[in-house]
């Protein structure tokens, strides 16, 4: 057996080759990282260029129309706001309370484990299946029809697992010493949760809620089953009315063959992205404003 010296010329050459391979590899990795970002950039520029001519006040004040230059997103915008508001009223209190139960009350055991697995699996169910659930349960089962309320409740079920997961993260981040200090002063379990844990977890919970809200606002597939109505030339007056939302109105316009409608759809996408950007900026602002270092 021969032992080669480190100064062996062949070894140096091989090392140089290995280093070169490393440089090529890093460059490849950098390019791969860039692909996603460049794609996002092209997408935004393309949508902005397509939609720019239709960015005018009529976009938000006009109702859908057969003529692209007269059509707008008034009913869709109002529909989106109404659906999101009702959904928020239903889903977020329930989601936060469920998270409090799982994080602060539930005793570790089989049943709790089952609950956790169940929430995780629910969060991964494709959204289109929530549409089928809404159709079978709310529209037909409870005879709500294809109404605003059925749509909002369906979306509430859709964002519930997401809310529970993010709220639990926020609750878990509150240090245990906070709870112990409150218990030491004689607080009951609910008092500890209500007066100490929840206030400290509030920014995190709120961030999760806003993320869930933006998920719901961008959701199309489940609502097609519930509000497939192509043409809604009025504002909803009660929760039993037909409705439409931004993504669905966009989908309708994209499905039409006339390319003018595609531009109108692009303008609607800009509107939708603006709403989402506003929501997410709020979430980031909330997170930064109240970040507590333990």
């Amino acid at each position, binding site marked *: 057996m021969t032992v080669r010296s480190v100064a062996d010329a062949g070894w140096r050459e091989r090392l140089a080759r290995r280093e070169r391979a490393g440089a090529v590899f*890093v460059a490849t990795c950098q390019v791969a*990282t860039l692909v*996603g970002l460049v794609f*996002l950039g092209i997408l935004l520029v393309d949508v902005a260029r397509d939609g720019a001519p239709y960015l005018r006040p009529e976009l938000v004040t006009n109702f859908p129309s057969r003529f692209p230059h007269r059509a707008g997103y008034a009913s869709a915008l109002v529909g989106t706001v109404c659906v999101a508001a009702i959904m928020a009223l239903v889903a977020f209190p329930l989601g936060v309370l469920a998270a409090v139960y*799982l994080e602060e009350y539930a005793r570790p055991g089989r049943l709790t484990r089952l609950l956790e697995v169940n929430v995780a699996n629910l969060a991964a169910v*494709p959204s289109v299946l929530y549409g089928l659930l809404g159709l079978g349960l709310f529209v037909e089962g409870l005879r709500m029809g294809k109404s605003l309320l059925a749509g909002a409740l369906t979306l509430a079920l859709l964002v519930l697992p997401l809310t529970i997961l993010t709220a639990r993260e926020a609750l878990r981040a509150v240090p245990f010493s906070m709870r112990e200090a409150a218990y030491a002063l004689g607080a009951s379990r*609910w008092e500890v949760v209500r007066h100490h844990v929840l206030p400290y977890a509030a920014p995190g919970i709120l961030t999760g809620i806003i993320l869930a809200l933006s998920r719901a606002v961008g959701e199309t*597939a489940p609502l097609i089953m519930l509000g497939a109505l192509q043409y809604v030339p009025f504002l909803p007056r009660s929760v039993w009315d037909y409705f439409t939302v931004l993504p669905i109105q966009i989908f309708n316009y994209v499905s039409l063959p006339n390319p003018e409608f595609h531009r109108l759809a692009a303008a609607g996408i800009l509107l939708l992205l603006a709403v989402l950007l506003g929501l997410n900026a709020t979430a980031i602002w909330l997170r930064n404003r109240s970040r507590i270092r333990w």
Partner: protein
Amino acid sequence: MESSRKARRRERWIEVGLAASGYLSVVVTVAIVAVLAYETVQFFRLPLHAADPRLLSARPDLQRLVEARPDLVGNPWRLVREFFTETTWSPLFSTKRFGVLPLLAGTILTSTIALAVAVPLGLLAATYLSEFAAEGLRARVKPALELLAGVPTIVYGYFALTFVTPLLQDYVFGQALAGQNALSAGLVMGIMILPLVSSLSEDVMRAVPADLRQGAYALGATRMEVALRVVLPAALSGIAAACVLALSRAVGETMIVALAAGQTPNWTWNPLETVETVTAFIVQVSLGDTPYGSVEYRTLFAVGMLLFVMTLGMNVVSVRVVQRFRERYL
């Protein structure tokens, strides 16, 4: 004494209320399974309904079914076999064939293309962010990549249909590429699930203990060798879980494929052709007028059940893989 008992009772009620909202998620799961299972059973019982003269006289959709497919009447097992083995899907047309394989093929084709984009790109990006990028750069690039996951899918659908497909037609495939095709839908879907692969994989790779890297450096390995031969294998099970999760997302994705891949069932593996996925079929039926309980309404839930079983299976697999990973490294 009295007040403390009252307080205790209040605590008890609060706990009950909290538990109720906790178990609501179980109710949702049960509801999903129940609705899908009930309607699926009703779908496979259609041949029996069609054999019932009282039902038949009141239901034009059943009459059309009997007219097109007299062989199915009274024969549910034939429908079951046809559903899983035959290659024509036309419940919305007068021929009424119920072989679900073309929809399944469309789903598999688009998802495979998406994975072929997302897995290599996502892994390379994760490797770069975890092993090579400076901390400041990583802190900025990772959230930027995650923005991709926050873009509504309808936007991707629009982009695939009005930008990617014309681009590919003009510069690569010419008219061989259909206006709606599996390729553009799959490519764009791949970008959509890219952050799922890259973020999760990056988390796992960073969790690999530093000792392993230092040991390899001490033996004279270069940074690439450490990344590829030490960190990557150590993180492999977590990466596999991320990929399975990404696949499940691709299989359940709806709007991109409904817009860009098409709404014509097609038994093909050619990515340049129009295909229809399971999810796109659900959208197609929902866009039309489907009276409650009709033949079309029930096909909706039968293919929905198929989708549910597929995605649930993948999620269970990925959770299993992650659990094994945790036992070994944390």
